[in-house]
């Protein structure tokens, strides 16, 4: 009798283990796949940012060039007030060029936490390009459904100190290995921002969202939409784009 029970129990345990292994891949492998989809060796992106203000909304168009994880150059194209404004990020430093004053201003420290052009993104958000797999320890904490897609709910805790958000909760598409929703937390546990990802399209073997909504959870409002009109991965970008001296050109 005891032997029969052991065999039955053993059977269920092994089936359960097998099924868990099948449903839950290692968290590290999941975020590495997310990194593959969201980051590339270089990229050129034409985008628009819709800032939903309290009284009216604004649309800001820009073209961004990035190489590796540490070089990023953005030129603002629209509206007239922002046209010609350029931003250059090298490592953790950010310079902004204003054509109206012909001045280059460097931002650093806590000033980087300020809102970018009145949006729900901060300069720091815009600058954060590090691989999730290198700066967070990830665990899969559950399974859910978001808009009919099966997702893993993942909890990421910071491995490094110099980080904008100590904890992230990601809802990751099981098939495409991309986040559909992301909650960003402070070390105190307070929810600071929520990002929703929409309209994923495959380009050059990567799934990339064509629309993201950033919401500063400390403010009331609809947040800011970041819409990708065109994106090119792994293209050659001339070095001059990443030189401070070319900001004034």
């Amino acid at each position, binding site marked *: 009798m005891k032997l029969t029970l052991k065999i039955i129990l053993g059977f269920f345990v092994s089936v359960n283990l097998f099924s868990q292994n099948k449903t839950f891949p290692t968290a590290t492998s999941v975020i590495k796949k997310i990194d593959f989809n969201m980051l590339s060796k270089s990229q050129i992106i034409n985008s628009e940012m819709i800032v939903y203000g309290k009284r009216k909304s604004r649309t800001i168009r820009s073209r961004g060039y990035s190489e590796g994880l540490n070089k990023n150059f953005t030129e603002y194209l629209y509206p007239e007030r922002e046209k010609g404004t350029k931003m250059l990020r090298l490592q953790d430093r950010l310079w*902004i060029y204003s054509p109206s004053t012909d001045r280059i201003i*460097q931002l650093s420290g806590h000033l980087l936490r300020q*809102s970018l052009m009145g949006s729900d993104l901060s300069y720091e958000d815009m600058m954060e390009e590090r691989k999730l797999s290198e700066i967070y320890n990830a665990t899969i904490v559950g399974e859910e459904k978001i808009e009919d897609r099966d997702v893993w709910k993942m909890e990421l805790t910071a491995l490094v100190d110099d980080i904008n958000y100590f904890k992230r909760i990601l809802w990751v598409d099981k098939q495409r290995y991309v986040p559909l929703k992301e909650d960003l937390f402070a070390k105190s546990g307070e929810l600071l921002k929520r990002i929703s990802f929409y309209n994923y399209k495959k380009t050059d073997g990567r799934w990339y969202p064509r629309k993201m909504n950033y919401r500063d959870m400390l403010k009331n409002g609809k947040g800011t939409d970041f819409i990708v009109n065109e994106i090119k991965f792994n293209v050659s970008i001339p070095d001059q784009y990443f030189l401070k001296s070319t900001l004034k050109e």
Partner: protein
Amino acid sequence: MIKFLIKGILRDPSKSIIPIFVITIGVMVTVLISGLVKGILSEVVNKNANLDTGHLKIMTKPYAENKDQLPNDLAILDLSILKESLELNYPNVDWAPRIKFAGIIDVPDKNGETKIQGPTLGLAYSILNTESKELKRLGIESSLIKGEIPKSENQILISDEFANKLSLSLGDEITFFGSTMEGSMVFEKVIMSGTIRFGTPLLDKGSFIMDLSYAQKILDMEDGAGELLGFLDNEIYNPIRAEEIKKDFNKKNINNLDEYAPIMLTLRDQNDLAPTLDLMDLITGIFIIVFVLAMSLVLWNTGLMGGLRRYNEFGIRLALGESKPKVYKFLLIESLIIGTIGSFIGTILGVSFCYYFQEVGLDFSDELAGTSIVMPSIMRAHISIDLFFIGFIPGLISMFLGTALSGRGIFKRETARLFKELEV
């Protein structure tokens, strides 16, 4: 009779020196403390009113709810229409629109790149408009440390402490980096025409003053302002009048369904000033009551001791045929004279010390360095007419009460025992 009593007091100082000394000290302390409390109170009220709250303040409802974040996207628009209607309804109030905005002051090097920078609070006042009372109200001229008041729109005044921190000199061109009311970037080259001391640590740390119309232009706030401050007649805060205007204005707007409808607050409604003002009033009242009671007790005791010392004098006077009520009456009049002398000296000394603290002040800048409220860094006493009565009358009353209580012993003297005592 008065002359006779004064001669008595002067020729026999032993019967008046202690009461005069006690009253002088008590009155002096009362006058000094009252002057300091009133001075600090009026400094706090004036500083808050002129720099931040006004006697009345109008904001939009959502701006008022988030005013610490300087939410200029929620500012008052169509300001001229609102101002016109206010001037019609409340003709004796001066209305001053203001904008507060945050950003960075960036100092360039010779290549036009950032040499040094710091976060700043911009304060936009109507300083170029000759009809505006803001220059006088804010005491900008008297607060100038270096340079001159802006003469053109792109000139600004920077707090002296901040200018020193950024190593700025007069005429230096610097860049203000901030955002418009809708969030667009603002880069504006401005010139430092002078430095100023606000006298409040919060603003002295890193603020600058810009002309209102120029700020409206660069912040895309044409005909808009974050706050509209109201100042009552002669710039004197009258809490009752302020409350009346507030109630009337808010009543008229109670059915306004606009999300950005204006709302009015009085000075007391802002910066937690109501409990502060009430507490200070209470402290002054309690202090005076306690003083009168304590002084009465001390002087009662002094009177008793004096009465014992003057036992023989009263005995002889009664023996010579003076009636008890007459001796008692003389004693009370004498107490009034002594009280007057003590109160007079005490008031003069108290007012003199107040004058010193009014001119020199007490520097609390170190203690207030980290504070986030508008408080004057130098607290000063304030001499007003009531200081001449606030100690004088209680001094007089306490001496009179003390003597009246101790002098009752006269009525207990028995004529039969009196002659026996006089034989001794």
